[in-house]
């Protein structure tokens, strides 16, 4: 069995440090993880996080729209889609809060399900936002299929301003809170801007394989 042979070779290579001490150290390290945080992730105060988040996302060419309350989301999305010339037909998961909004009044139709190759616009909900780097944190589920973030040319993400945190470690705290210690959704997608490539002549081109456009709707209320 290669498994046992590889682990035996690795164990021989590192065995100088002794057996039980190593086991204890590793155990503590894994237990401690939930409390540890990195240095200076958030140089800004909590009140500044949404602004910092917006600036960082815009720097990555994402559009950011702030609305006062959830009921304003459909109008904001409709306005954005019309401004970029996209059809007002969205694909979205079964997130209840999103589904309960007045999309029809805003002239937007929503088709439920995972994304298909024909879908032009995907709509997701973020579990968290990271102010430092302008990063969206999406957890996959039936409410929020991961394909929505990659197949359509335009990706729209709704995030509650209260879920914007300073750094990546704080976002992981929210993930642990939602799924439990050591547990993860099938896919946790950290998204910082639209799809891009610099592989031809070093020039950045948007929309390499995933969305050409990313629009983030921040709900303040």
């Amino acid at each position, binding site marked *: *069995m*290669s498994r046992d*042979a*590889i*682990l035996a*070779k*690795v164990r021989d*290579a*590192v065995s100088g*440090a002794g057996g039980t001490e*190593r086991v204890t*150290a*590793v155990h503590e390290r*894994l237990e401690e*993880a939930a409390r540890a*945080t*990195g*240095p*200076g992730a958030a*140089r800004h105060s909590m009140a500044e996080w949404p602004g910092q988040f917006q600036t960082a996302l815009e720097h990555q060419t994402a559009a950011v729209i702030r609305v006062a309350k959830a009921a304003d989301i459909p109008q904001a999305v409709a306005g954005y889609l019309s401004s970029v010339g996209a059809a007002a037909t969205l694909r979205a998961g079964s997130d209840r809060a999103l589904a309960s909004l007045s999309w029809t009044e805003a002239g937007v139709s929503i088709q439920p399900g*995972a*994304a298909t*190759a024909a879908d032009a616009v995907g709509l997701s909900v973020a579990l968290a936002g*990271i102010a430092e*780097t302008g*990063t969206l944190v999406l957890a*996959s*589920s*039936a409410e929020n*299929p*991961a*394909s929505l*973030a*990659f197949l359509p040319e335009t990706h729209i993400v709704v995030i509650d301003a209260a879920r914007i945190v300073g750094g990546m*470690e704080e976002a*992981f705290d929210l993930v642990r809170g939602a799924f439990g210690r*050591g547990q*993860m*959704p*099938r*896919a946790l*997608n*950290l*998204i*910082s801007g*639209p*799809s*891009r*490539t*610099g*592989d*031809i002549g*070093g*020039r950045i*081109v948007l*929309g*390499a*394989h*995933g*969305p050409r456009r990313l629009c983030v709707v921040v709900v303040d209320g």
Partner: protein
Amino acid sequence: MSAGPRDFKANAATAIADAGLQRALAGLPGGLVAQRTAAVARCPEFEALRDQGRDIRDHTLANLDLYLEQFETNAKHAGSHVHWAATATEACKIIADICAFANAELVVKGKSMVSEEIGLNAHLQRGGLEVVETDLGEYIIQNRGETPSHIIAPAIHLTQADVEADFRRLHDHLQKARVFHDPADLVAEARAILREKFLAADVGITGANFLISETGSSIIVTNEGNGDLTQILPKTHIVVASIEKVVPTLNDAATLLKLLARSATGQDMTAYTTFATGPRRAGDLDGPEACHIVIVDNGRSEMLAGDMREALRCIRCGACMNHCPVYNAIGGHAYGWVYPGPIGAVLTPGLLGLEQAAHLPNASTFCGACETVCPVKIPLVKLMRGWRTAGHECNGGAWPLAAWSFAARRPRLYHGSARFAAAILGAIGRSSGAFHWLPFARGWTRHRDLAAPQGRTFQQLWSETKRGVPR
């Protein structure tokens, strides 16, 4: 350019004479250097992060057996199948068997250095599979039958015109009269072609930037999103990762991710960082039905046991090669294998054997630029020097170097010889100022002149200065 690090000297000479390559190299690594410098300037804690990154990697390597076991337990708990491969051959066989079990005909791939290392594509293709690289740079070089020339920018050695010529030849079902105004048109064409491949693929293979013990997750980082389409759309997802990719916790991964993007491309975060944990869950509408993780040793456990362990800290950002004057002069292919630049000069002898790669650690001026930017502070100069010493000992080395070494360890003999040589060479060469040719030193004079000594040796000048003798 011939294959193999044994041919490094000839490859380097060819690369320097290759006008197209020199054009491609002119701006690109330098651009990445400038972007990294700007990103580091925006992150005042970057130096502290480098120390933490180094400590995380060292702690993990010192306990690698335990973290691998913990990773395996948690990955299995999430529903992944975990496989172990001691060698490249075994890894290829495991992956081919998984593809056969999935009745696969078409395999899409995300960018993976270890899959290059084990020769995975060729193995799968010999078995009758169609294998398509989906990272744009990898797609471009796959179609040319080349290996990556840079670990994060695999087609950095090519210009836009090279890619256009390839696409016209390769995509011959498209209109001949189509015009490519700029890179965006080329990207759009590749996107459309590769989108069909994603949708039709039976198996998706990705590498892993990290494996997380705490959760049994694998992480991939891409700017294009190709790694995500590779793992979301096909029914079977295979992750191939080498043993040293494991890190203890999500927070440790966070520290390393903060270092990775800034060091690699100068972004604060790469566009897509994805943590994948097992196959699709009950109720999920997308995601793979089966998830396999193949953990590959292929020589790393030997490196872990020896003097080169610090090289296993590497997180594959490419900063060392971007900052390397030798890499910038010759590009990645001259190194003759998968990993170019300073990290390649250390890894390749470790993974392929020193007899294959003895030239690579000599391909350095020891300026140390690589070390000053390495996000996990790998002492690359020390490690390259270690390989040079080992190479010298194993093949006897060049006799002038052996003679120099003999003398250098005997100060009186050394100073006497140096004084003698300086006087003789000075007397002969002072008028012309330099030698174009010298016996026993053609390795030097073939490529540059040797400046003639102008009198006393450094040691003599030093002792005179200390005594206060005016010059």
